[in-house]
C-alpha cells in the first residue's frame, strides 16, 4: 500500500493516488506516514524532472495533486514534527516584477530536494528580503527576475543585504528568463542558474560550502 502511493503519485496517476490516500485515511493510517509517502513521490518527480523525463507540465500537475492530498490529509493531522531539512532558502521575485511561475517552480524543486523555502511572493522590496534573512537566519537567498528592469532590483537587493551586514551570512543566487553571467556580475550575486535544477544544485553547493 505504502509503495503504491509513492509509485502511483510519482507516475502522476491522480485519481488512483487520491483513492489510495482516502482508503488509507479511512483505514486509520497515520496521516504523517501518508504525507511522508507523498513527499517521497515528489522527490521522485523532482529526480525525473532533473533527468528531463518530466517537464514543467508535470511539475505543475504534481503540485496540483499535492494540494488535493494536503486538503484530504490535513484535517486528520496533529501537530507533527517537520522533517530534517538541508537548509533554508529565502525566495522571492524582486521589486517591480510580478512574475511568479518560474519562482514557484524553483520553490517546488528546492522543497522536494530537502530545503525549507520561505517564499516571499512577488514584487518583494529589498528590505523584506533583509528582514526575513535577519529573522530566520537563513543562509541562502534566491532572487527571481523575469524583466530586464529587474536587473536593478536584483542589484539593489544584493546591496541592501550587504548594507545590513548580512552579506557574509548568505549566499545569493539569481535566475529568470533574461539572467545570465553578465547579469550576475552586474548584480553582485554569488551565482546564477538557468533553471530550477540549477537552483537546487547551487543551493546544495552553498550548504556543502558552509559545512566544510
Amino acid at each position, binding site marked *: 500500500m505504502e509503495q503504491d502511493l509513492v509509485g502511483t503519485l510519482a507516475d502522476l496517476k491522480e485519481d488512483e493516488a487520491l483513492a489510495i490516500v482516502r482508503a488509507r485515511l479511512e483505514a486509520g493510517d497515520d496521516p504523517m506516514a501518508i504525507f511522508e509517502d507523498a513527499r517521497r513521490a515528489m522527490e521522485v518527480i523532482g529526480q525525473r524532472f532533473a533527468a528531463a523525463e518530466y517537464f514543467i*507540465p508535470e511539475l505543475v500537475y504534481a503540485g496540483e495533486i499535492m494540494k488535493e492530498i494536503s486538503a484530504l490529509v490535513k484535517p486528520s493531522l496533529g501537530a507533527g514534527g517537520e522533517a530534517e531539512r538541508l537548509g533554508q532558502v529565502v525566495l522571492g521575485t524582486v521589486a517591480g516584477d510580478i512574475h511568479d511561475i518560474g519562482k514557484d517552480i524553483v520553490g517546488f524543486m528546492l522543497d522536494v530536494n530537502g530545503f525549507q523555502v520561505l517564499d516571499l511572493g512577488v514584487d518583494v522590496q529589498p528590505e523584506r528580503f533583509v528582514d526575513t534573512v535577519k529573522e530566520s537566519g537563513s543562509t541562502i537567498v534566491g532572487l527571481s527576475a523575469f524583466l530586464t528592469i529587474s536587473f536593478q532590483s536584483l542589484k539593489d537587493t544584493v546591496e541592501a543585504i550587504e548594507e545590513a551586514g548580512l552579506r557574509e551570512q548568505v549566499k545569493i543566487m539569481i535566475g529568470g*528568463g533574461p539572467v545570465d553571467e553578465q547579469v550576475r556580475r*552586474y548584480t553582485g550575486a554569488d551565482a546564477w542558474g538557468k533553471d530550477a535544477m540549477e537552483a537546487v544544485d547551487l543551493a546544495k553547493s552553498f550548504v556543502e560550502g558552509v559545512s566544510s
Partner: protein
Amino acid sequence: MTATTPEKTWAELSPEEKRDARFRTYLAPEGIEFASPEAEERYRAGVTRFRDVIELRTPDRVPVLINATFMPAKISGVLPHTIMYEPEVLASTFKQFLVDYEPDYYFTPAIIGDGKVFEILDIQQVAWPGHGVAKDSGYQYVEGEYMRADEYHALIDDPTDFWMRTYLPRVCGALAGLANIAPFTDLWEIVLVSGHMVTFGTPDVQKALQALMDAGTRALTWIQHVGAFEAEARGLGFVSAAGGISKAPFDILADTVRGTRGTMVDLHRRPEQVLEAVERLTPLAIKQGVTGATAQANPVVFMPLHKGADGFMSDEQFRTFYWPSLKAVVVGLVNEGCVPCLFCEGGYNSRLEYLTELPKGSCYCIFDRTDMARAKEVLGDTVAIGGGIHPGLVLTGTAEQMRERCKELIDTAGRGGGYVMAFGTAMDEGNPETVHAMIDFTKEYGVYR
C-alpha cells in the same frame, strides 16, 4: 520577380506570386512622401535587403532590427507611463529614436497600447506603467484562469461567442455586461429580434457598449498619432518590421486565456480538449495574421512564441500539442504570401530540427538563448535566422563587448546571408552605448563583399 498576369484573381495566385505582390507593395508604400532621394533609397534598400535575407540570397549587408517595446522611451529618459498616456509623445519619442540610432527596421509604437483605452476597458489581465506597476516599468501580465477548465466545450463550439460573452467580460471589467447578452447566431428569424434586444436595454450591457464607444473614440485619437509616425518613419527611410501579428495556437490558449498553470494541468487532465481547442484556434490565427499584413501593406507577421521553448514541455508534448498547429499557422500565412517571423524567446535548441519542416525561404526565426552557430547549421538551407543579442549584454555590457558579440554572430549566423541582427527578446530598455555599437558595427562589419 515572378510574372503575374493581370487576369489572375488573388485566389489564383501561387504563394510565391502572393508574396511577390506583397513585397512590391511593401517596397513602394502608397501615399508616402520621402524626405529626400536618399531616404527613399534607404527605404528601398532596407526592404530589398530583408527580402534577400528571407529568400536566402546574399544581401548587400547584414540588416539590423531594433525589436524594442519601451526602449525608445527609456533610453532617452522618457517614462513608459508617459508614452502610454500621451500619444503625441509616443510618436515623437519613437521618431527621435529612429533619427538618433538609424536601425534598418523598427517595431511599431502601436504595440505599446494606450493607457486610457486600457483604463476605459478596465483591463484586469495586465498591470501597466502607473497602473499596478511603477511608471518606469513595462507592462506585466497577471496570470490567471480567464477560461475555466470546464469551458473548453464553449470555446470549441464557437470561439467568437466565447470570446465576446465569456472571455472579454472577465478580462475587461467594463465589459462585464456582455456576459448577459444572447449569442448573435440566435438571431435567425424575425420573431426572435425583439426578445434578443432586451438585454441591450439593461444598464450593465449599456455600460459595456458605452465603454467600447469611449475606448473607440480614444483609440481614434491614438491611431492618428501612430499613423502619422508610421508615414513619417517610412518617409525618412525606415522600414516597419511587421504588418500583422499572430501566435502559436497553443500559446493563444495557454498565455492569456486558460493561463500557464491551467493549461499545463490540462495536458494531463484533458489532453483531447486542449488539442481540439488549439486546432479550433488555428484558422483564426492565420486569418488574424493575414488581415494585419494586408491592412498594413507589410508582408511580415510577427509571432511571439512562448511555451514551445526548451525545457517547458517534453519533446512528445511539443510534437503533439504545440508544433502541428504552429506549423499549420506558418504554412497558412506563407500560402497567403505573408512572411511569418517566429520570435523564439528562451532557448530553441531542442526544437531546431522541427523548424526545418517550414516552407523554404519564406519565413524567419529570431532566437534568444539558442546556439546561433548550430541554428545556422541546421536551418541555413531552409529559413533565415536572426537575434542572438542577449538583454544582459545590452544593459550591462560595454560597446566593445557588444561589437565582439556582433562580430561572432555575423561570422557564424551571418555567413553567406540569411541573418538579421536583432535582440533575442523585445527590449523594454536600452543603453545608448551598446545599442549604437550594435547598429553601427553591423552596418560596417556586416557588409558582404
